[in-house]
């Protein structure tokens, strides 16, 4: 059992949990994830470790409430427990000192991006950050990113914060302005695809973090398989980070929709159940 030490709704429908998991915190590195299961009947949901604190023995996860499992997660308060937390899984990000890294985050992908951006800053790299969200109410970790980045640029679809438009617009301007050694792009699949297409034109190496459906997270089931440069890789053990120029994003998007009908029904049934109980 893993105790929740903190629960905070950091943006509309986006929840932050700080969890007591000392052994995981001791080993967690940027780019790695945990699998979280709320109860005996629950699913195993992969979530990136957004922050970890060795001295406190805690890890922090951030997720958007989108289906039944995350709805159950969000119903847990401080002092409640997750039944299972497994990790740290996946390969850590290869972090090095670079002249210029541009970190591009969208939606809850920002939670995944944060520890990586921080890692590059701590290694002495110059890090510019571009964050995107549909509107300002959905934007997360803005202050945290502001604290570590050299330049922080915000893009919203409706212009409610920063520039009106997509992260790719801001990225294009930045790449025109000055050369970058690496772009790290984490967010919705179509955002990562658009960023990768753009950076390919500028010949800038691009790292993306993929979020396919997973079960065990240890390479045992092959559910999370993705096509990288025409080869099948398992995101849980070979990733989750891959060269954005090699990823088949369309296939990833297709595979993410495998259980869409079931997920919708499961959430509807759950909503009926909890409103019926009231």
């Amino acid at each position, binding site marked *: 059992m893993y105790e929740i030490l903190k629960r905070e709704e950091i943006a509309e429908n986006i929840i932050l949990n700080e969890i007591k998991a000392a*052994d*995981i915190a001791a*080993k967690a590195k940027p780019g790695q994830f945990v699998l979280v*299961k709320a109860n005996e*009947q*629950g*699913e*195993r949901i992969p979530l990136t470790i957004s922050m970890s604190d060795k001295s406190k023995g805690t890890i922090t996860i951030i997720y958007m409430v989108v289906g*039944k*499992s995350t709805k159950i997660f969000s119903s847990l308060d401080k002092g409640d427990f997750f*039944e*299972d*937390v*497994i*990790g*740290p*899984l996946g390969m850590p990000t290869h972090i090095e000192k670079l002249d210029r890294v541009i970190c591009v985050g969208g939606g809850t992908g920002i939670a995944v991006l944060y520890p990586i951006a921080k890692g590059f800053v701590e290694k002495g790299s110059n890090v510019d950050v571009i964050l995107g969200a549909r509107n300002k109410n959905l934007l997360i970790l803005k202050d945290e990113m502001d604290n570590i980045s050299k330049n922080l640029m915000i893009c919203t679809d409706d212009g409610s914060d920063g520039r009106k438009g997509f992260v790719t617009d801001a990225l294009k301007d930045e790449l025109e302005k000055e050369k970058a050694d690496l772009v790290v792009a984490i967010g919705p699949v179509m955002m990562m695809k658009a960023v990768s297409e753009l950076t390919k034109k500028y010949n800038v190496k691009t790292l993306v973090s993929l979020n396919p459906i997973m*079960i*065990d997270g*240890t*390479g*045992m*089931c*092959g*559910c999370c*398989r993705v*096509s990288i440069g025409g080869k*099948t890789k*398992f995101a849980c*053990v070979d990733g989750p980070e891959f060269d954005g120029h090699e990823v088949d994003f369309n*296939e990833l998007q*297709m*595979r993410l*929709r*495998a*259980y869409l009908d*079931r*997920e919708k029904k*499961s959430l509807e049934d759950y909503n009926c159940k909890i409103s019926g109980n009231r």
Partner: protein
Amino acid sequence: MADKAKKIPRQKMPEQKPEIRRSNFKEVPFGFDKETALLEASRCLKCKKPSCVEGCPVSVPIPQFISLILEEKFDDAIAEIRKKNFLPAVCGRVCPQENQCEGSCILGKKGTPVAIGALERFAADLEINAGKKDVCLNVKKTGRKVAVVGSGPSGLTVAGDLALKGYDVTVFEAFHKAGGVLVYGIPEFRLPKTIVEYEIEKLKSCGVKFVLNYVIGKIKTINDLFEEGFDAVYIGVGAGLPSFLNIEGENFNGVFSANEYLTRANLMKAYDSDYDTPIAVGDNVVVVGAGNVAMDAARTALRLGGKNVSIVYRRSREEMPARAEELHHAEEEGIDFKLLTNPVKVLGDENGRIKGVECIKMELGEPDDSGRRRPVEIKGSEFVIDCDLMIIAVGSGANPVLTRSEKDLALTKRGYVEADSETGKTSVKGVWAGGDIVTGQATVIMAMGAGRKAATDIDRYLSEL
């Protein structure tokens, strides 16, 4: 005695009728009742040099325990089995007896062998039903600590053997439940999970500690374990990296590895509507492969609502690696066998869902490295099987999660751990390995046999420290 054996036919276990069991997950055979067990036990010739024991990877004293059953000393019978086998209720159900003990039984030469597996199960089930768990009383503690990585059949055997010798054993399991393949892989209808839980409880009563959700190689390295005071480490993490066919269209939705399909169904209990696990239910299901895992996947898909479930296998019936009983049960339940057939391409619709699989007919040519006749494509024989679910059960490769973190651990070219075949010793001092991570995908009992050898050697090593 021999005359008597000839007169009494091999007793059959009563089982659920195929038309009923094909829509439930309850165990198929019910096991022997006392009368049937006594009758079957009376068939044993009690050979002076029992070849059945030689056929058993863990050398269960078979004639002895069968005699005890015949004398109705059931407690003694199970105690006799447990001297050599820590998981009798499991082995009685899942061992390929026809290739091992029963395959060597002298009665089988002219007629049918003694139903050793069924008798083992009978004795083990009696013990489970009585709920006895006190096997480790009065064991003198050695003060030495052993870490076992992986709680599948080989890990449990090592844990059991060493606990009985007084070692302080901790088992680390990556999943949220202990049991390894016994829990995630083998379905409820073949091995009820209450049995695995019972065996694990029994180990706990012997002082074995289980740490779940703990992926060694990630949360701790083997070196960390030594630093934390463990004196020896056993690696029994299983093969666990599913092989795919590497054919076009394999990533369409609706194409699963058997590992995924079975994990969803078994460990994550997708067949139980109280659980949140989604699983694909197909009307027309194609399962590729013909081992036990393929049979398990096909029969699971059937029970989840599949209307037409086919096994597609590139060789012929003689080469099918599954246990005879599994093939028999699968056929009885209406699984269709498309033999000498090989998939070449998965066909999908515009939404990325599988709609069929293109196959080609095969014929058998000259023997290959495995000694089996090599299947060869018949040109121009391509045809399409319409299906909405495809499960690939063609084996596993070596899982890299632990081995990647252990640079000093010598591996084979294919990524398996190099271990001495007699002792399980690896290239790293104080580290042993056994089961599928050494041999590649094999059977429960082979993994247990490897665990037994390693436990003996670990005991020798630690006694000399």
